[in-house]
């Protein structure tokens, strides 16, 4: 018989009556000064959802402009600001905060802790990130320069030098880009430090590293990677500001400086950054897939090893974004090889997920549907990534719509799908109510159909020679019909996301009551109430395997008898 404990899930002082909860201002104040990881997690997620809608609207305008050649919906300058802001927002104000928001909420619960290692640093990091985002968007009002009217950054999210030099980008647009990201970058660094310290130092008794849920493992790997990923960008942005304001010459070609230095530094950040974005998606899938096919994840140690391998190898592939800058053939060959190699641990994960499904009993709930979409789409995205790693082919495909299709397949098809899955999965834990399954399924199917209409088609535009970052295109190049199709898919996705937003908001009041463990899951966050009390667990748990709740529910067949 087991001699372990799981915490009582009942709250010590349940049911605060509305009249006891204070005025609206008092409650607002509580949220502003909170250091509770759960509340900060929710703040991050609300923040990201807001910017998802903003950046999504920017994308819709872009697609409206490109639906027909020589359109006048957006002028050249405004278009260039929109695609710059769309990319910058999605990466820094949607992707990163969503994923750190999930981490904040779930990791302490999954390791049986009461909070993150440094709660005040946690709050400080959130507000830094939030302020950075607001600073970026203030540029629409305050960026006035030579052109007179306020303007947002318009140099591409990658901001290549020397386009960003004072002489080619007068005014403050570029400065907003650099400063906003420096500020939110420090917030990101703070959260990464916090997650590493929390996971290493605050696990409950018995939870060795190899007994942590894979979600937590992956967020540990992501946070470690973030430490050496976001910092090169911060360094490069300081260099850019030194050039722009102190007369520095880092990227000043007139003084012997080099654009290639910026390009290398940017992609030394930029490539690991995409792994920072995608590994949390894997983390979410690692939780959802086993629960909805009723089997343990297949090959846990290999999944850990593959994640760590990805962390290291991803640091060696950055110049596959630079195959066309004129590196030597040997360099191009090296980066081709390293990029192909990073596909191996990534592919292994897909095999492990399929093997998890194999022999299971699959329930097609909304979170699971999103994860299934993720599996198909991530497979395709990985394969188009292999195509792009073939450097001679990349000499054609680089900077074309094929690349945009590939990375949106990853960012939307894998990451956003997993984010939606994760939101449906953990919403009941955070709010105590389930989201509507019916609306969820409508959301999923509309979004998937729109996604495929847009991004499957987009690959062909790249193959037909259409480059990226163009506000319009010539009508005689054979791109007209495909662009229209791409735009229509965008509208469908927009409608799907609005459906989701409605579901997200309304379910808080009208969703079915969830209880502690609506999905019959196996990790510690489901052992406490929904929502958890501020102290998470009345008694800190002690665990003996990777699935403490499986052990509790199956005392005759506990995991620890099988785990190596």
């Amino acid at each position: 018989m087991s001699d372990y404990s799981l915490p009582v899930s009942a709250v010590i002082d349940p049911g605060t009556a509305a009249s006891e909860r204070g005025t609206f201002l008092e409650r607002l104040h509580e949220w502003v000064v909170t250091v509770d990881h759960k509340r900060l997690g929710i703040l991050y997620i609300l923040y990201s959802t807001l910017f998802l809608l903003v950046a999504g609207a920017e994308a819709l305008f872009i697609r409206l402009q490109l639906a027909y050649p020589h359109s006048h919906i957006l002028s050249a300058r405004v278009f260039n600001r929109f695609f710059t802001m769309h990319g910058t927002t999605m990466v820094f104000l949607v992707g990163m905060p969503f994923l750190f928001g999930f981490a904040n909420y779930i990791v302490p619960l999954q390791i049986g802790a009461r909070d993150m290692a440094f709660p005040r640093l946690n709050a400080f990091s959130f507000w830094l990130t939030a302020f950075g985002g607001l600073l970026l968007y203030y540029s629409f009002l305050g960026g006035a320069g030579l052109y007179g009217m306020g303007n947002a950054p318009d140099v591409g999210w990658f901001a290549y030098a020397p386009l960003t030099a004072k002489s080619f980008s007068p005014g403050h647009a570029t400065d907003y880009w650099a400063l906003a990201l420096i500020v939110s970058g420090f917030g990101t660094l703070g959260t990464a430090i916090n997650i590493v310290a929390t996971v290493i130092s605050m696990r409950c008794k018995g939870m060795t590293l190899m007994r942590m849920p894979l979600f937590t493992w992956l967020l540990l790997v992501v946070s470690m990677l973030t430490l050496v990923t976001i910092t090169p960008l911060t360094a490069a942005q300081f260099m850019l500001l030194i050039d722009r304001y102190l007369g520095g010459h880092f990227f000043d070609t007139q003084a012997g400086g080099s654009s290639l230095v910026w390009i290398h530094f940017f992609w030394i950040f930029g490539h690991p950054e995409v792994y920072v974005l995608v590994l949390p998606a894997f983390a979410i899938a690692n939780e959802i897939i086993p629960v909805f096919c009723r089997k343990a994840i297949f090959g846990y140690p290999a999944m850990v090893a593959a994640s760590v391998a990805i962390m290291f190898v991803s640091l060696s592939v950055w110049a596959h974004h630079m195959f066309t800058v004129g590196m030597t053939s040997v360099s191009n060959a090296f980066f081709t090889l390293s990029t192909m190699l990073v596909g191996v641990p990534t592919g292994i994960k897909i095999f492990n997920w399929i093997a998890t499904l194999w022999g299971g009993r699959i329930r097609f709930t909304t979170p699971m549907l999103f994860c299934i979409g993720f599996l198909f789409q991530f497979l395709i995205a990985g394969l188009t990534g292999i195509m792009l790693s073939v450097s001679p082919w990349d000499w054609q495909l680089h900077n074309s719509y094929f690349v945009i299709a590939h990375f949106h397949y990853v960012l939307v098809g894998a990451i956003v799908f997993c984010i939606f899955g994760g939101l449906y999965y953990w919403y009941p834990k955070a709010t105590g109510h389930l989201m509507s399954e019916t609306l969820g399924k409508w959301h999923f199917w509309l979004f998937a159909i729109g996604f495929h209409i847009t991004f499957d088609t987009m690959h062909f535009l790249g193959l037909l020679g259409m480059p990226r970052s163009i506000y319009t295109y010539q009508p005689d190049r054979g791109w007209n019909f495909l662009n229209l199709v791409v735009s229509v898919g965008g509208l469908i996705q927009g409608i799907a996301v609005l459906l989701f937003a409605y579901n997200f908001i309304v379910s808080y009041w009208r969703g079915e009551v969830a209880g502690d463990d609506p999905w019959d899951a196996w990790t510690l966050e489901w052992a406490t109430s929904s929502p958890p009390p501020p102290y998470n667990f009345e008694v800190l748990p002690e665990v003996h395997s990777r699935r403490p709740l499986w052990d509790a529910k199956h005392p005759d067949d506990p995991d620890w008898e099988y785990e190596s």
Partner: protein
Amino acid sequence: MSTVPIKHPENTIEWHLPSKRRVGMSALITGESAIFTIFVVAYVFYIGKSLTGPTPAQVLEVPILSTICLLSSSLTIRRAEKAIEDERVASFTLWLAATIALAAAFLTETALEWKKLIFHDGLTISTNLFGTTFYSLVGLHATHVVVGLFLLTTTLLFSLFGWVDSRHSDRFGVIALYWHFVDAVWVVVFTVVYLIGR
């Protein structure tokens, strides 16, 4: 409400995890190392590429004395760490003061070096590639020394008020870790700027 049986066993497992403060500081150091690496790479890449202006060989003097000061401060802070672990508060305060003095000496000599470079040799951050990369790299390091100095001085003040004892040795160890990092970075910067680059 949980339907799971609850038991409260005695301490059955030995459970020791690393100190969260040390882990946090190590993580910060990892991130900072990445920032410094980028500035060092830029410095090394641009060696010899300035189109004009003073070269390192013409204007740089090897700062032996300030390097000795800074590296010795790693030794004095180690003594301070040992002292506070053993609750020898007076000894701790003295060694901490010595560390601060050595750090201040380092900063003073850096300031004097910069004064000479700017006013006597005409080298500023905007003069040429050497100026840009030199001031940004050495300046970034000096900024980290200043932050460390602030942390150390605050601790010294607390100690002078009698508020520090062996219970704080883990926290002070974290500050010392940061300080050792700053010294290690100086070894790299010194080698790259004053030995290799000259």
